[in-house]
C-alpha cells in the first residue's frame, strides 16, 4: 500500500551507492524483503520503472529475496516457515506455545553495476594493468 515511498527509498540508496562506486549504470538491485512486511513486488517494480527513468538505475532489474517467517514450537522444538494468516499452534504436536520470528526484513542488500571497460579501444592495453 505504501510502495511509492518504499520505491523512493530504494532508488535514493541505490543512486548514492552507484555514484560512490564510480557512476556506472546499475544492472541489478538485490532487495531482501520479509514476507510479513507487506510489500508487493509488482507494485514496487511498477513505481521503480517510472521513478528511475533518466537516472543511473534506469532499466535495472529488481531482484527480490523473500525471507519467510519462522515458527518455532516451545514444546517439541518443531520449526516451520509460515506466512499470514499464521497458524495458532504447532503443526507437529498441537501445542499453542509457539513463537514466530523473522519475516520483517526490509533492506537493499547490494547492487550490480556495469563492469567498467578500462581497456583502450585503440591499443588494447588495460591501464589498470600497467
Amino acid at each position, binding site marked *: 500500500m505504501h510502495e511509492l515511498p518504499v520505491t523512493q527509498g*530504494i532508488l535514493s540508496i541505490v543512486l548514492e551507492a552507484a555514484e560512490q562506486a564510480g557512476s556506472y549504470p546499475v544492472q541489478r538491485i538485490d532487495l531482501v524483503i520479509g514476507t510479513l512486511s507487506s510489500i508487493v513486488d509488482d507494485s514496487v517494480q511498477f513505481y521503480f520503472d517510472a521513478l528511475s527513468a533518466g537516472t543511473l538505475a534506469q532499466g535495472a532489474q529488481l531482484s527480490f529475496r523473500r525471507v519467510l517467517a519462522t515458527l518455532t514450537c516451545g514444546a517439541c522444538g518443531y520449526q516451520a516457515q509460515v506466512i499470514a494468516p499464521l497458524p495458532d499452534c504447532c503443526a507437529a504436536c498441537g501445542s499453542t506455545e509457539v513463537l514466530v520470528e523473522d519475516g520483517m526484513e526490509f533492506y537493499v542488500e547490494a547492487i550490480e553495476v556495469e563492469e567498467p571497460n578500462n581497456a583502450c579501444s585503440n591499443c588494447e592495453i588495460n591501464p589498470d594493468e600497467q
Partner: protein
Amino acid sequence: MHVPIVKSILTSNDQIAAENKAVLDQHGVVAVNLMASPGAGKTSLILATARSLPAALRPAVIEGDLASSIDAELMAKNGIPVVQINTGGNCHLDAPMIRSAFPHLPFGEFELLLIENVGNLVCPANFALGAHLALVVASVPEGHDKPYKYPGMFAAADVVVLNKVELKEVFEFDPDYFWRGVQMLKPEAPIFEVSCRTGAGVAEWAAWLAQHVAGVATQNT
C-alpha cells in the same frame, strides 16, 4: 561489479525519526505511536486515557488523518493541546510529518505526546516516527484473528490495548485465541483489555502508561 550495501529501505525516514526522538528527549517528552484499524477506538482511547492519567501527565496529541480535522476538534474541545496532520490520502504518518508538527506543540507544558496514526493495520508499522512506545489498539468487533492476519503490525507492538471488551459475547470473541496470536509474535508485549465506553480497564492501562513514561524519563536523565 558487485557493490554490497545492506541498508534499510526507509533509511532516510529512520534518520529523521532518530532526530525526532532526540528533540523529544531534549524536551523531556515521551511519545507513543498509536496504531490501529479505522474505528478501533484510537481517539476514544486517547480521550479516556487523558482523563485517567494523573494531572501532571496531561498529554499533547498529534492527530494523523487522511483529510478531516474531526478528531482534532474533539481533542481541542476537551482541552488537550493538539496538532492536526492531514496526510492528503497517504496511508500512514512518517517521520518528516511528525517533525513538521513539532513547531506547533507547546513544548515545556507536557511530558507525554500521543500520536494518533492513520487508521490502517498495514503501513504504519513500517514507518518509524521517533516515538518511544508503539501501541497497537485492537477492538472486539474486528475479530479475534487480527494478529494472525496482520502479523507485521502486532510484531511491531510494544503494548496492545484491546478495546470494546463489553462486546465480547455479541461478537463471540475468543480472548485466548487473540492473546495467543499477540504472544507468538511479541511475547513480552503486555495486553490491556478496556472499554472506552464503560471505562472498564482504563485505569489499569493508564497506570501502566504513567509508570512506563516515568521509566523512560528516568532513563533519559
